[in-house]
């Protein structure tokens, strides 16, 4: 429809290499009559792994979707590296949305692989059509990414021939193919059988080790404790408390967090 959300021509070659921190300033969002986010402030530094936890409806997914330009917001701003996105810019598919989105990959709870394309086809789609890269180069890089998530042998499989865990790993490879500076993961193991969650979480640990910034909405408290550098509890549209996982998970200070953890951990 519009070329506005195509990344700027300088997006790759001239890509900023400086401080790629994510800054959320006073972000607020109403949805219908409800205040989903009310003045959220958040900074994620490069290489950091941040787990967003909290009760359902607390605004965790909305925060991620705002960061990726899938939801607009009503107040505040988002900055990723040198690119800033204001509330006004978030409402339409503007160049600002595209620039921010370009630096952030997004993984969905329900995978959303393209069913008419093979695993490799899913991975090379955006590099070829958005970045205009050649097929040979895209496939070479795509195969490397599939190898990295342990699916080199499934490159020609269609999504309906893959298990849930495999699908989610293809989705991660697909997001990585656009070379994002951070991955936004929206409850990416929630739709998986318990025995399949591990293979996806292992991939995340591997990416963290490589220094990729991760912002995870998760209900896997165990994983958060093990892998996160910082845990943020989001409830009723605001940050309740944040800190190192052992502090938040093992010694929560607020009643809200205690109540939430007692229900999740049983």
């Amino acid at each position, binding site marked *: 429809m*519009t070329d506005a959300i195509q990344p700027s021509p300088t997006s790759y070659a001239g890509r900023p290499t400086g401080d790629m921190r994510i800054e959320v300033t006073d972000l607020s969002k109403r949805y219908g009559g409800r205040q989903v986010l009310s003045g959220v402030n958040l900074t994620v530094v490069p290489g950091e792994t941040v787990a967003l936890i909290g009760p359902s409806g607390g605004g965790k997914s909305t925060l991620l979707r705002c960061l990726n330009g*899938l939801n607009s917001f009503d107040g505040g701003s988002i900055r990723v590296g040198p690119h800033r996105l204001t509330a006004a810019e978030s409402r339409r598919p503007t160049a600002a949305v595209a620039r921010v989105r*370009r630096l952030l990959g997004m993984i*969905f709870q329900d995978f959303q692989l393209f069913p008419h394309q093979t695993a490799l086809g899913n991975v090379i789609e*955006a590099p070829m059509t958005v970045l205009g890269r050649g097929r040979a180069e895209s496939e070479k890089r795509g195969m490397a990414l599939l190898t990295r998530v342990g699916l080199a042998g499934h490159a020609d499989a269609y999504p309906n021939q893959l298990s849930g865990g495999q699908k989610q790993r293809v989705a991660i490879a697909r997001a990585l193919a656009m070379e994002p500076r951070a991955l936004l993961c929206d409850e990416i193991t929630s739709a998986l059988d318990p025995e399949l969650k591990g293979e996806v979480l292992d991939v995340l640990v591997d990416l963290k080790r490589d220094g990729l910034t991760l912002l995870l909405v998760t209900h896997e408290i165990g994983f958060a404790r093990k892998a996160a550098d910082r845990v943020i509890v989001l409830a009723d549209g605001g940050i309740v408390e944040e800190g190192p996982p052992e502090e938040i998970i093992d010694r929560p200070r607020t009643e809200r967090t205690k109540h939430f953890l007692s229900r999740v951990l049983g």
Partner: protein
Amino acid sequence: MRRWRSCRGMMFFAAVLWAAAVGNGRADAPPLLWAADESGGAPYVFQDPDNADRVVGFEVDLKDALEGELGRPIRFKHYDFKNLIPGLQRGDFDFAMNGLEVLPEYQKEVLFSRPYYVYELQLAVRKGERRFKTIEELKDLRLPVATLSGSAAERLLMGRGVNPPLLHSYDDQTGMYIDLANGNVDAVYIDLPVHIYYLPKYPGLELTGQPGEKGYYAVAFRKADGALCEQFNGALGRLIDGDKLRPIYQKWGVWNDDQMELAAPELGASTVGLLASPLGQGPLLAAPALLPRTEHDLTPAAHTESAVPVWKYLGYLLGGAGVTVALSVLGMALAVALGMPIALMRLYGPAPIRWLAIAYVEVFRGIPVLLLLFFLYFVFGSPYHIDAFTTAVVGLGLNYAAYEAEIYRAAIGAVPAGQWEAAASLGMSRALTFRRIILPQALRIILPPMTSDFVALFKDTSVVSVIAVAELTKRYQTAAQSSLDYVGIGLMTAALYLVMSVPLGFLSRWLEQRWGKGVM
């Protein structure tokens, strides 16, 4: 039959000689276009059972005689009988001569020549019918009666209070007699020449009562073509005065003493005002006796008693199949080309554009194709002289675009919103997402209903015969009228439709498998 063959041979020879004469002497005279409906049936104008490419009948012979008198070649043009008057006014041909009755309603619209035939209406019944002999008795008994739609007989029956459901109006002549023979109706009321031709073929049927209301057949012209009409009046006058119509009518078994009336001075000039009083009110000039069967049981009837092999019509029907395929493919191409933008307008357009798309779908889905074709051809296309085939393609395309738009809208809407979001998160624009991600998935959903639509359109092409496009079904009617082998021709036509539509189903399933990889 042998007599007929030799007779036909001589006719052919004469026709060749005559054609040579015309070719030499009158090459510069522009041909006149004469319209008639050969699927209407014998003995007026019908397809030659021995040669599907030509027409025969007493009006064809009359046409030949008129050519000689006028010194101008006349070319035949097929036209749907019910639309002869609007077609004449539209300028699709120069004159209509096809058993058109001189009726006051027609006289308002067109100019009639002096009459070339005096017809009477009569009842035909199953042999042994004792219950009635007249229309009045038939009406009192509340028995069903058949006639041709748009005929003077139909008007007269309705004028006397015989209405549907007792009144059965047919588009073709054979249907009436078959239904009478089978007991679906109890009488056929129609012009005597029709009875004379068809009754010998149905041994269980006979005429009853007396020939009734009398009327005239005349040649119809546009009101503005008075000079041409006068030329025809002169030519007809010379044929009548020279007693040259008699051999033609006798050859087809439709001569009777009523025709002597054609020479009457009051019919000489023109028929304008001839039938100022409603049909049938004036007393008959003479009360002709019931025409004895033997007098009419002549050669034209005899030749059809021997079955004409069905395969003789194959080439003719194949030509119709070609027209049907061309109509379907072009019509569907237009429907798809229009349907997708309309679906997109409805899905993603701003409010006024969306309403426009909704209005299009509701209007064109709600109007019968038949009506749409009439409107396009006789109202909208008339001033521009858009030809019938183009009109047919446009009409079918406009109609089916509404159906396609709805299918596409539903299919595009059925692709989960998450697919749009996943593509957006990868930096794909809306247009790119639609083309690369949404459309390929929607196509798989679209394909089966679209194939059904194509097969439906394929069969719906039969309606375009109303604007005189001779596609397969129309050719079936014509060939069946000509051969009277409804079953044989019907089976062959059905086989042609199947040969064309069944592979479509296979193609669709193959495409579904091909495109459906990973989705099912």
